[in-house]
C-alpha cells in the first residue's frame, strides 16, 4: 500500500485532470437540446401560438440569449442540482432521474456480479489450460458474449422462461407494477431475467481479459521459480489470483459503468423502471430536458466511476506508477 500522502496527491491530480472532461460532458449534454431539429419550445407551445407568446416563452426559458450565456446559466443551475423541468410530467428532472437511477444501479450491479463471477471462471479456465478443448469452449463463450445482441437475448429468455415454461415474470420490477425494486423473494424473481441478459456482455469482456492476464502471468519467470521451488499448484494459483486481481477488478468497475449507460435496450425489453426506461419515454415524448438531464447524470456517474476505479487500482497495485 502506498503512503497515504502520495495517494492523496495522486487523487487530487486525477480530480484536476477530470474537471475539463466534466465540463466537456456538460457542453455536449447542453448542446443535445440544440442539435434537435425544430424549435425546442414546440413541445410546450400550442401549434397556433401567437408570435408574442412565442417570444414571451422564449425569454422565459432563456432561449433569446446567446448560446454561451445560455450554457453558463444552465450550468450554474446544474451545479445547484437543478436539471430543469420535465415537459411531459411537469415534475423536476432531478427527482425523476434520481428515482430511476436507483433501479438501474441495482440491475447493473447484479448483472456485473453475475458477469464477473462467470467471466473470471471461464477466463481462468481458458488461461490455465491454454490450447486445450476447455480453452476453446471458454473462448467461444466469451466471443458469443460480446457478439450477442442483448435485446434479442432478453426476448429469447422471456420466450423460454416466461412464455414456454412460465417460471419467471416477463416484465416489470415487481408484482402489481411496483416502481421500486426491493430485496425480497417476490421482487427477486423479477430481476433474474434482465440481470442475466445484461450480464452477458461483461461476462464476455471479463473472460477475455482474465484469459489474457492469466496466460501472461503463467509465462512469467517468477511462476517458474515458484514451481521449481516445489510450491504446490494451489500455491501457484494463489499467486496468479493476486497478480490478476487488480486489473480484473478494474475491468469489472468499468463494465458496471458501461451497463449503467447501456441499460436502455434491456430495460425497454423488460419494462424495467430505470433510467433506460426514462430515456425511452423522454425520446418519444420529445421531452428534451428529461433526455438531457438523464444523459448528464449517467455520463457523470460513468466519469466518477472511472476516476474511482483508477484511484483504487493505483492504491491496490504497487506496480502502477503514480504520475
Amino acid at each position, binding site marked *: 500500500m502506498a503512503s497515504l500522502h502520495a495517494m492523496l496527491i495522486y487523487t487530487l491530480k486525477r480530480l484536476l485532470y477530470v474537471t475539463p472532461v466534466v465540463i466537456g460532458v456538460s457542453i455536449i449534454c447542453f448542446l443535445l437540446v440544440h442539435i434537435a431539429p425544430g424549435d425546442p419550445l414546440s413541445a410546450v407551445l400550442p401549434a397556433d401560438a401567437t408570435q408574442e407568446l412565442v417570444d414571451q416563452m422564449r425569454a422565459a426559458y432563456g432561449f433569446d440569449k446567446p448560446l454561451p450565456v445560455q450554457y453558463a446559466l444552465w450550468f450554474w443551475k446544474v451545479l445547484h442540482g437543478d436539471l430543469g423541468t420535465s415537459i411531459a410530467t411537469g415534475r423536476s428532472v432531478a427527482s425523476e432521474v434520481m428515482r430511476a437511477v436507483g433501479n438501474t444501479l441495482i440491475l447493473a450491479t447484479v448483472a456485473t456480479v453475475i458477469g464477473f463471477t462467470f467471466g473470471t471462471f471461464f477466463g481462468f479456465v481458458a488461461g490455465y489450460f491454454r490450447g486445450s478443448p476447455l480453452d476453446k469452449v471458454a473462448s467461444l463463450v466469451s466471443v458469443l458474449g460480446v457478439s450477442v*445482441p442483448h435485446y434479442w437475448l432478453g*426476448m429469447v429468455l422471456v420466450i423460454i422462461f416466461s412464455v414456454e415454461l412460465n417460471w419467471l415474470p416477463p416484465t416489470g420490477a415487481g408484482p402489481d407494477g411496483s416502481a421500486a425494486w426491493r430485496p425480497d423473494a417476490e421482487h427477486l424473481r423479477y430481476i433474474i431475467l434482465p440481470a442475466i441478459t445484461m450480464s452477458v456482455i461483461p461476462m464476455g469482456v471479463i473472460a477475455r481479459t482474465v484469459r489474457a492476464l492469466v496466460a501472461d502471468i503463467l509465462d512469467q519467470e517468477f511462476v517458474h521459480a515458484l514451481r521449481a521451488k516445489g510450491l504446490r499448484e494451489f500455491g501457484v494459483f494463489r499467486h496468479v489470483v493476486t497478480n490478476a486481481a487488480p486489473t480484473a477488478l478494474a475491468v469489472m468497475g468499468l463494465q458496471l459503468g458501461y451497463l449503467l449507460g447501456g441499460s436502455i435496450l434491456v430495460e425497454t425489453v423488460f419494462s424495467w423502471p430505470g433510467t433506460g426506461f426514462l430515456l425511452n419515454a423522454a425520446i418519444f415524448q420529445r421531452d428534451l430536458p428529461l433526455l438531457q438531464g438523464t444523459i448528464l447524470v*449517467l455520463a457523470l456517474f460513468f466519469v466518477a466511476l472511472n476516476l474511482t476505479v483508477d484511484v483504487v487500482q493505483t492504491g491496490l497495485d504497487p506496480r502502477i506508477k503514480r504520475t
Partner: protein
Amino acid sequence: MAAITDIGLDVPRLPAPRVGRGYWAGVGRRLLRDPVAVAAAIVILAIVLAAVFAPWVAPADPYRASMLRRLRPVGDALYPLGSDELGRDMLSRIIYGGRLSLLMGLLPVAFAFIAGSTIGILAGFVGGRVNTAIMRTVDVFFAFPSVLLAIALSGALGAGIINAIASLTVVFTPQVTRIAESVTTQIRTRDYVEAARASGAGPLAIIRVHVLGNVLGPIFVYATSLISVSMILASGLSFLGLGSKPPEPEWGLMLNTLRTAIYVQPMVAALPGVMIFITSISFNLLSDGLRSAMEVK
C-alpha cells in the same frame, strides 16, 4: 583448419530465398489458413450477396401483406420461415432486411475510419498543442458509454436512418482517432522517419510514404473490430424505433414489431435477432482472424 573448410563445403546449398511476395499477400495467405476466419468470411459473403441480389433471391415481395395469413409458423407450406404480424413473408423480409441492417452497421464504421484516421494521424504527426486539443476533446467523448452516446444523439436528432448513421459515426470516430493517434505517435519517433526528414523529405512525403504505410493496417484492424458493435447498436436503434421506419424490412425493427408475437409465434419473433447475432459474431471472428494474420497486437 582444413577439416572445417571441408565441412563448410559439404553443407548442402540452401535454396535461394524466395522474393518476398509483399505484406498483404502474406496476410491473405495466413488468413486463408485460418478455418474459423474463412468460415466467418463465407457467412458474411453469403449474407451480403443475398442482400445485394435480394430481388432475385427472395421468394416473395417483402412488403406484400396478407390479413388472412398472419403469423404463420416456421415451416409453413407457403412461408418457409413463417409470416410476420401483417402476414408478410419472413424469409423475404430477412433477406431484404440485410440491406438496411448491413448498411446501417457498416457505414458508420467506414465513415469513422476515414474521419478518425485523418484526425488521429494529424494529431499524432503534428504533436504539441494541436495534439493536446484534439486528444482532450476525444477524452470527453470517452466519458460516455457508447450505447448511451448513440441513443442520446439519435434521440435528440430524431428517428431516421441518416440520423442513426450520423450518431453512430460520432460514437466511433473518437475511438478510431485514439488508436490512430497512438500508432502515429509511435511511428513518428522511429529512426527511418528521422532519416527521411534529415534527407530533406517534406511532411507530406513522410506522411504518405512512411506514416500511412505503417499505421493504416493497425487502424483498419481496429475498425473491423467495431463492425460487430456497430451492427448490434444500429439494429438496437431501430429496435427502439430510432432507426429505420415501418414498413421497411430491417432486422432490429422487425424484432421490435414482432415483440408482441412472442406468445403466438416465438420462433418467428426471434428470427431477425438470429440474423443480427450471426452477422455480428461472423464479423467478430473475421476481425480476430485478420488481427492475428496481420500480427497486430
